């Protein structure tokens, strides 16, 4: 049995590292927060972890488009390894090949998509979908309802049904490069979460679908289910007092976000 060890990356505008690490710990993982400078300098190494977490934020201020410059940074960045330089990309793929998990939330999801790490259908880093400006043209902070795809291979959403998280983004509109890409994603059930109305119907209507995402797609996984990214913030709902209506509804102590982290921890322990 392996101990789940999360590496939560921060720096250059990432800003949800603390609550992300907190969620990991609540789910029973060990979690370290590391500034990306320490990863590039080799002081922190991916090989010591089995869960890599790209949290939300504003990598490089979203200049050039959300997470775009960040994607260049990670794709072309070099890490110091055993005295010489290795590509960060190779370290990352090494973690994936070893059976590790990768989660990207919001800006982290945008980063994974733009690096080509999701949906990762061909098993190589190539961008095939994107996340564009919300139809509203605005950044918005509002809570959204999500339906979980029960047949998705995603290990994070196993056993989850309806979720309720906040979105906090200006660029979350899912767009595929082509209809073929979209069909392949749908056929392989790589959409673990979709926006719904409060009644649970999948929707393209604002504000329930907050950005105009095609097919109401709120998140994506890869065919192994071990790589997962989503626009809404699960780490923002791990305790009932984070729910916008906790003062008027009877809610369990634990928030609906925690299940994703618990599933990840459980998967790592079992694998």
């Amino acid at each position, binding site marked *: 049995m392996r101990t789940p060890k999360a590496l939560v990356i921060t720096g250059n505008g990432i800003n949800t590292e603390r609550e992300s690490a907190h969620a990991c710990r609540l789910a029973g993982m060990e979690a370290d927060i590391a500034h990306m400078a320490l990863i590039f300098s080799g002081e922190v190494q991916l090989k010591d972890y089995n869960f890599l977490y790209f949290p939300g934020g504003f990598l490089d201020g979203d200049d050039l488009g959300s997470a775009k410059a960040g994607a260049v940074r990670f794709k072309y960045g070099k890490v110091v390894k055993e005295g010489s330089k290795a590509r960060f990309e190779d370290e990352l793929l090494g973690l994936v090949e070893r059976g590790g998990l990768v989660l990207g939330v919001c800006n982290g999801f945008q980063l994974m998509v733009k690096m080509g790490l999701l949906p990762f259908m061909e098993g190589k880093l190539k961008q095939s979908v994107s996340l564009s400006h919300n139809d509203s043209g605005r950044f918005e902070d509002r809570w959204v309802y999500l339906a979980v795809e029960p047949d998705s291979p995603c290990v994070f959403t196993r056993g989850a049904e309806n979720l309720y998280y906040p979105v906090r983004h200006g660029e979350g509109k899912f767009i595929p490069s082509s209809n073929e890409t979209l069909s392949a994603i749908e056929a392989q059930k790589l959409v673990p979460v979709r926006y719904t109305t409060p009644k649970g119907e999948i929707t393209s209507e604002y504000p329930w679908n907050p950005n105009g995402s095609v097919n109401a797609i709120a998140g994506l996984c890869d065919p192994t289910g071990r790589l997962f990214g989503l626009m809404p913030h699960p780490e923002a709902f791990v305790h009932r007092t984070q729910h*916008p209506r906790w003062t008027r509804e009877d809610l369990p102590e634990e928030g609906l976000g925690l299940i994703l982290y618990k599933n990840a921890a459980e998967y790592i322990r079992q694998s």
Partner: protein
Amino acid sequence: MAKRVEVAVNPELRDSRGEGCAREIEEFLHIPLEGVRTLDAFTLDFEVTDGELAALAKEVFSDPVIQVSSTGGMLGAEIFPSFDWLLEVGYLPGVTDNEGRTAKEAVEMLLERSLPHQEKVYTSVQYLIKGSSLERETVEKIAAGLLANPLIQRWRILSREEYEASGGVSPEVPRVTGVSKPIVNEIDLEVSDEELLEISKKGLLALTVGEMQAVRDFYREEQNQAKRAALGLPADKPTDVELECLAQTWSEHCKHKIFNATINYEDEGGNVEVITSIFKTYIQGATKKVREDLGEDDYCLSVFIDNAGVIAFDDDYSLCFKVETHNSPSALDPYGGALTGIVGVNRDPMGTGMGSQLIFNVDTFCFANPFHEEELPPRLLHPRRIYEGVVTGVEHGGNKSGIPTVNGTVYFDDRFLGKPLVFCGTAGLIPRTLNGGPGHNKRTKAGDLVVMAGGRIGKDGIHGATFSSEELHEGSPATAVQLGDPITQKRLYDFLLIARDRGLYSSITDNGAGGLSSSIGEMAEQTGGARLNLDRAPLKYPGLHPWEILVSESQERMSIAVPEENIDEFMALAEKMRVEAVVMGEFTDEGAFHLLYDGKTVGYLPLEFLHDGLPPMLLNAKWTPPQHEEPTFECPNDLTGELTGLLGRLNICSKESIVRRYDHEVQGGSVIKPFVGAQNDGPSDAAVNRPLLDSFEGVVTANGISPRYSDIDAYWMTALVVDEAIRNAIAVGGTLDHLAGLDNFCWCDPVESEKTPDGRYKLAQLVRSSKALYEYTTAYGVPLVSGKDSMKNDYSIGGTKISIPPTLLFSVIGKVPDIRKSVSMDAKRVGDLIYVLGKTLPELGGSEYWAAKGYTGNSVPKVDAVANKELYRALEKAIQDGLVASCHDCSDGGLGVAIAESVFSGDLGASVDLSKAPIDGVVRNDELLFSESAGRFVVTVSPEKKASFEAEMGGSAFALVGEVTEGEKLIIDGLGKERIVETGTVALKEAWQTPLAAL
């Protein structure tokens, strides 16, 4: 030769930026168009091969799925073949270009080589406009009136023919050129008083004749002359470095001259009182009294002496809070001004004590009506542009910094046309103990090195401090405008927290107004001196004169004292984290601020003179109570209609369209959010946050602002805003046991002069406001811990003068013992009992209701702190005991508005008999519904808790007035038990939500 990459949204996809522009051009400028599409242009001012350029276009500058790119310069024609005009907007030389900076870093990553500082990427935006009937001058109007700000941007317009003929837009590089050689000038002050004033005016020094004379006299003293001669300085006259340094340090902005003036105050009865410093007497005086009263329970740790006030939080952390204004820059460039306002105030807690971790932001704006239709006086921007620019600036500054924006207000009054007010605040947590000492104290020692870290210095922001110490006039400098860079600051902040925890520095402060002259000048006071080599400062571009380096207010910079033994580790960490840091000198105990350039002394100012040489101002104030016309109208028959109308008033209606643009939940600590209730859209009274995710202790913050009451008496305005902020905090579960206040005064010039003939009255308003601040903070036992004043909020060009109404923003911060006991404002369940707490009097002077009818009146609400305190204490306990289902503050629009908001936020109805409410002298139903008496709440309580709740409220004024019903209908009966309001709550909510929904 510069190269260009153009990038656009794939033409098959929507271009939301283009659509937004088209909409705004129609709405604002009333210019009909057939369409707008946009593209981004990147101008690369360095050598790249064609192959590299193609790779950059694909890999760095564009998203292959949703964008198209071109290096051919004519992408516009490809993506929008039918466009008629092209407008390209780029930055002026020297203006911060954040996206360009990021682009350069990404280019360096891809090319695997680093580029020298001056080789840059510049960004610009092309607007492709279709409109066959458009003339060049109309496009010019679109540029100047909406899409560009000439203070920071420049533009080019090409007709379609010109575009085709020139093969697109030729790259134009906004490099800073015409560099002058840095020089130091000497200034002769042995001139007439008029000439002294002229020197001050021309140099934007904002010093008075008396102050200029004090400077001159310093250079007349023989012992000073001898010392200066020995240092190689002109013996009997200042260098420009020295004069600028003095002007910054002595500015109203930095020195608060009016608050420290000696004032002769005459009241309405002719009684004269001499006040030696409003600040010392009423503000520091209030805190001193409260702390004495608190005795051993005093939770203040550091008040007034640092960048932010500090109070205790728990055993491990203390809490600091600061609110600033950024009014003048926001008037000239709303986006840049507000952005700089928020990232600027972030640096205050960052530079408090040994530095804090930032936990939330608050923002309050005062604007003129965004739907203003009349002609605007020269140099003023339309309030709708100010609104949009300020809201967006704060959005970018706060969101990109990863700090939740949890509380704020927007207040509308047409006098804010002259200057908008932009209040930005930030709170932080400081470890109680840090490397063996209290985290809230600085520990600079002589011999520590002066380090500047973060951004570089440019000419931006020069004279910000002196500029904001004047009214907005024709010559107001464009260099006072600048753009913030939240990401450079975030990197700096991430780095500093690590350096702090490793104990690498001994002191830290921010560079704000006055730049290095203020930050190092102030830090030098701790050790008794500093030596600063101005030539070592990293510059954005060459050619800055030494005085410019000293006073530039370029953003994102902190000044840090680093002990010599730690410097290598400090610099190595900075380099690794890509933060620029440079050693500029050292702290000394030689008693002076010593300025050098290339090893040569260019300024030497004894600290005693720099900090205490300013002669105090002598001012006169005379209070003559104004008399406003008393309303004479009869009580309207249709009070339902009146209530519906009030809910749609700008000062009452929902601000959700703004608030949703702010991330209020990042960091995971949001407990009482800005919007609550059944549909997440009811207006919270205050915010509760939980900064430590493994603890249930929390922080409450709230505010009070109500400039309208100043028209009657600034004394009661102040009493009311203090009461309102405290009341809001109590409403969500705060406690008077652990609450601290911040005062932010924004006044119109209160110094009598030719320009301000009514200065005595305006100063009397300030005196009265300060007296009330003392009275009410001491009565409630809420210590003031920090604050700021901005005293020149006037506009004066040509014959037009607009003065803002005297405004005090009172903010509170406090500790909540258990966040799980917090209460929100929305009615919860059918059958819950509705109570009114606090007494209603016929106090409609300055109310929203009378304002809607065109009256101010005179019966301003008065605050009974003794009765209120007893009530607040009782309510605090009832909330802690879990007896309260909902609690809503009652202020603008009175009981009618408070009950309506509570009920519609719960998607419920109510049946209320207001004849039962505690009243005194109320004889009309409109008074009953809309009076704005202080100290009141609308509370709902579950029926089984009725007895306990009523027992806890004890002898305070309160009454059971009705119950929550289903069916979404609001029924209110009046004084004679007659029905005065009967309507669907959905309609009320719609009236409340509509006015600003589309903005």
